[in-house]
């Protein structure tokens, strides 16, 4: 019974509860059991089983009263980058030791308002900076997947690695992620699940620990495209507390999934055929093209000529914004404090002790590119190139409705690999960063397996605020791919 309940999709669980065939309490208890049985993955930093049960019981009461929300009674994981009132919030950093927010992030509040139940706070790269989940102060997350015939632990990707692993291993029906340069889409691809980064401005950033404010966006991580559509609908919406939140109605994304993409134009960007791309990624991409053609869409070759400059641009802009955002960790207002004789010494000691290696590297990079004499050469240059990259997409979208690239240039790798070469790690985001810089929506769906038996993802990018088209095409791609492989480890 337990694994029956944890194997459901969000849509199936929603119907089951609506029909009264199970209660939220039963569904939540099954998932708490699953979460506890999967502790070896280290997917959660904090488990909140008591809160989950209390929320589930309250949900069952609401359902009886006839006031069920969009995600009524469904247990989910919350990336530990969202502030949750009274519940430890760490951003996977030592510097936020003991931080219990006195407020709730807008996105998590929206989910609770829709009836969702919180299982716990999921692990991530420290301050969401990383592509492997290995930079967490609370230790790396182990992917539930294994290469065929090889039991060595693999990374789940990052930064939303705990959310991806928890959803793939059936510990949670869905989980929140945040995506700054690929942190939802790349771990979704590595773990064989669906990860959606909506348009910048679609979800409020209020109460999310800030990394790079012009790029950060929250989004859902689920096992199907339909689940993604229903979860995003609950997360999104205008919020006066985020000045970049867009005041536009949130559509019923599920309703957009008509399955009919006949005559739609899908862009295939020639610049995404990068040097040294593994043949299995290329082969999967060609399959994706064939699937969409068979469904009646028309493929159009497009050019995004500044693609190769996206990563270096990102690695100026994101660290610059991070160095500014992370100035708030000063040992005064929250978290860790290391004593010093003067105020400055206290700041330096606290920050020296509290930040991990990758975060330190990015703070120093960001401080450097913003410092006097380099501001124009680096930061302003990057902002200009960012305009060119956004312009490439704007031009392409005059001709096409959506764009189909792969999600990542490889399948998951071993825990501890690539750690000594920051640039090799940065290159994992080569296909996800351009859309982040342009603020566009993108989804990764599991589309096939590598020769080693690991999941590979295909990505669909849409026009700004046209998540509906993204979901519509993604639904067709998902059905054609028929991905039904399961990870080696399943919680039960």
């Amino acid at each position, binding site marked *: 019974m337990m694994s029956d309940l944890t194997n459901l999709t969000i849509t199936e669980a929603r119907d089951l509860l609506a029909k009264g065939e199970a209660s939220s309490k039963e569904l939540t208890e099954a998932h708490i059991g699953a979460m506890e049985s999967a502790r070896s993955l280290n997917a959660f930093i904090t488990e909140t089983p008591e809160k989950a049960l209390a929320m589930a019981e309250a949900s069952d009461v609401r359902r009886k009263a006839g006031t069920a929300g969009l995600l009524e009674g469904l247990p989910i994981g919350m990336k530990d980058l969202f502030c949750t009132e009274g519940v430890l919030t760490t951003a996977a950093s030592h510097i936020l030791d003991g931080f219990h927010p006195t407020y709730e992030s807008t996105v998590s509040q929206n989910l609770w308002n829709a009836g969702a139940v919180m299982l716990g706070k999921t692990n991530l790269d420290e301050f969401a900076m990383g592509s492997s989940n290995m930079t967490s102060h609370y230790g790396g997350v182990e992917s539930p997947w294994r290469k065929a015939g090889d039991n060595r632990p693999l990374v789940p990707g990052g930064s939303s690695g705990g959310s991806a692993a928890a959803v793939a291993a059936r510990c949670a029906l869905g989980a929140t992620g945040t995506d700054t340069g690929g942190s939802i889409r790349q771990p979704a691809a590595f773990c064989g699940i669906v990860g959606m980064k909506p348009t910048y401005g679609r979800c409020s950033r209020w109460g999310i620990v800030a990394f790079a404010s012009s790029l950060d966006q929250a989004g859902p991580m689920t096992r199907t495209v339909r689940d993604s559509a229903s979860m995003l609908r609950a997360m999104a919406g205008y919020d006066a507390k985020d000045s970049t939140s867009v005041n536009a109605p949130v559509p019923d994304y599920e309703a957009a999934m008509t399955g009919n993409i006949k005559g739609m134009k899908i862009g295939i960007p020639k610049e995404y055929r990068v040097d040294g791309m593994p043949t299995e990624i290329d082969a999967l991409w060609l399959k994706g093209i064939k699937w969409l053609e068979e469904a009646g869409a028309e493929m159009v070759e497009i050019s995004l000529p500044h693609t190769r400059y996206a990563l270096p641009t990102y690695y100026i802009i994101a660290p610059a914004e991070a160095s500014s955002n992370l100035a708030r960790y000063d040992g005064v207002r929250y978290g860790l404090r290391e004593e010093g004789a003067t105020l400055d010494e206290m700041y330096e000691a606290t920050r020296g002790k509290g930040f991990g290696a990758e975060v330190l590297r990015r703070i120093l990079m960001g401080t*450097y590119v913003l410092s006097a004499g380099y501001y124009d050469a680096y930061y302003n240059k990057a902002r200009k190139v960012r305009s060119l990259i956004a312009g490439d997409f704007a031009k392409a979208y005059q001709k096409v409705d959506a764009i189909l690239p792969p999600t990542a240039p490889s399948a998951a790798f071993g825990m501890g690999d690539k750690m000594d070469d920051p640039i090799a790690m940065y290159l994992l985001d080569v296909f996800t960063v351009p859309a982040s810089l342009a603020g566009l929506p993108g989804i990764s769906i599991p589309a096939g397996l590598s020769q080693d038996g690991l999941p590979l993802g295909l990505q669909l990018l849409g026009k700004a605020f046209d998540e509906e088209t993204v979901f519509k095409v993604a639904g067709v791609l998902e059905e054609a791919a028929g991905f039904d492989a399961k990870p080696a480890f399943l919680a039960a």
Partner: protein
Amino acid sequence: MSVDKETVAKIARLARVRVDESHKEALAKELSNILGWIEQLSELDTDGVEPMTSVVSMTLPLREDKVTDGGYPDKVTANAPEAAHGFYAVPKVVE
């Protein structure tokens, strides 16, 4: 552009973060590598290109200039490593 140990010390000071002497050499090398890789942007002609200020074209909303929140210093300082009488406490700043 290459970064030396002294530059690392200078930017660490600007960022108010203590870096162990023994790590400065390695950090200088890492930052130099990353900057070398970033350098490829210089081959792009960006004359006349407007730097991006907002990724979604929008006007920042205005609100009435009045106090709408506050009055709970205990809540604000609840997470402070050291607080007293509704204030944050820090090492002595003025002699």
